[in-house]
């Protein structure tokens, strides 16, 4: 029982990374009908920027703001920088090829992914980097025999607050309705006065911003980061997106959390070595039996 609860908490923690990254895939897909393959590498960029701020400044940030203040400050800088990177990716790699159709977009996305990965390798090197233990808080609670680290609680709290905020913006505000309308029908959205360029700007800032923060939290959690980790995380978050229903915001969150729990239970009870295999079996099974995902129900559409 204790093991089960601990695995579920571990699963929720990694699931919240997947969920935050999946949100970016899903929002961009909704509006652009593009799978942004560079998204996983923006996640990596977030991890490395966070590493540089926390480690290379040899504790200046944490000395000035306190440990938690320092991490919050770092998260804000990382979120904004990766959001900016996301906007640049759209300007450089997607906007110019948009009129040429979806295949060109996908090829451009793959190219952008390779470019980002190699740039990160060129800047930070090919060897994995470790977050210094001095800046990573380690304290834990034992609740009914279940071990929970403070960091896990922080990660879960931050992720859920971010997800609740996104859900509120997209589902409950007028701007959110304009985002959903643009995803359904760009031309008609334009006709009724929605500036679709603003919507694209928004999804390419917010999606990568969230992904970058997830990358930083991932670095704090596992402590070791490498230039090519975005590929694996990207694929898993993409699996989560498909599982929940692509283009569906609550679906991305649900898919991410479910996938995290599933992976963690597999690692705990079956085999750590096989967990990735099972994760991608989920992708294939979902694509075969329910390609619209758990929440991506098609509405009856009358013509």
């Amino acid at each position, binding site marked *: 029982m204790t093991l089960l609860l601990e695995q579920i908490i571990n699963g929720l923690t990694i699931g919240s990374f997947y969920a935050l990254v999946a949100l970016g895939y899903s929002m961009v897909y909704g509006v652009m009908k593009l799978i942004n393959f560079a998204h996983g590498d923006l996640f990596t960029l977030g991890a490395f920027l966070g590493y540089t701020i926390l480690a290379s400044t040899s504790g200046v940030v944490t000395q000035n703001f306190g440990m938690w203040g320092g991490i919050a400050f770092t998260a804000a800088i990382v979120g904004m920088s990766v959001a900016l990177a996301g906007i640049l990716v759209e300007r450089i790699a997607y906007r110019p090829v948009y009129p040429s159709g979806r295949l060109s977009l996908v090829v451009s996305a793959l190219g952008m992914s390779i470019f980002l990965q190699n740039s990160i390798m060129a800047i930070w090197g090919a060897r994995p980097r470790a977050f210094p233990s001095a800046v990573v808080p380690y304290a834990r609670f034992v609740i009914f025999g279940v071990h929970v680290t403070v960091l896990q609680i922080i990660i879960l709290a931050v992720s859920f607050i971010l997800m609740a905020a996104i859900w509120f913006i997209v589902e409950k505000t007028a701007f959110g*309705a304009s985002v959903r309308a643009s995803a359904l029908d760009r*031309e*008609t959205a*334009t*006709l*009724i*006065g929605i500036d679709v360029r603003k919507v694209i700007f928004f999804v390419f800032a917010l999606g990568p911003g969230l992904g970058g923060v997830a990358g930083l939290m991932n670095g704090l959690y596992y402590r070791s980061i490498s230039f090519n980790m975005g590929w694996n995380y990207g694929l898993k978050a993409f699996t989560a997106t498909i599982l929940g229903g692509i283009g569906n915001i609550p679906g991305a969150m649900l898919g991410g959390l479910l996938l995290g729990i599933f992976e963690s239970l597999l690692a705990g009870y079956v085999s750590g070595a096989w967990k990735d295999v099972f994760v991608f079996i989920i992708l294939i099974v979902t694509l075969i039996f329910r390609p619209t995902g758990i929440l991506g129900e098609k*509405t009856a559409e*009358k013509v």
Partner: protein
Amino acid sequence: MNILLEIQNIVLDYGAVRALDAVSVTVGENEIVAVLGANGAGKTSLLKAVSGLHKPTSGQIIFRGKDMANTPAFELAGQGIAHVPEGRRVFSTLSVRENLMLGMYGVRRARDKKQLSAKEERIYSLFPILKERRNQLAGTLSGGEQQMLAIGRALVSAPALLLLDEPSLGLAPIIVKEIFEMIQKIHKEEKVAILIVEQNARKALKVASRGYILELGRVALEGKAADLISNPKVRAAYLGGGMEGCD
């Protein structure tokens, strides 16, 4: 009558294909004008040029005395041009109410809550069925109801000019009748000019005061609606020949 919209000699190309070739159309304030023609004559292209979706190669589109050719499409909605596209195109997975409220998105002055709900109520009084279904997803409405929603979504911005693209397309005859009655009612009560594109020439000419007939991207004929209805050439080509008294 004051002129609201003046389309002067516009040429519109899709790549190598010329969709509109020196077309001129005027719409007076509070006037209904019909544009008729066969498939591919350029009717929809004409509306899309007015609402800014397609930028003309040359020519001018003057709305309320101002050339709109360089205004981005999304800004035109807030300046008094509302376009109901062909096939209705409601946002199917958004609620009826969300669809309506989005119709006011481009109108900056309409951001305060009281005004918004007053406009919403106004649309519900025109189309009571939409009020009943306001929390339903728009995709679950019938074709006629979707057409009402599409018109409501355009009207809610209080436009000076309403562009209607094939409002009767794919609807049952009884619903078509209802939609055209609705168009007349809207015209009377909302004081809005309407530029309507239709395949159902007879119905359109009955509500319009003037009409234009497009053939292969050019204006083949223009005149008062009553004159067009009795013109033998028009009768032969667009009104089903000699089938007198047939609606």
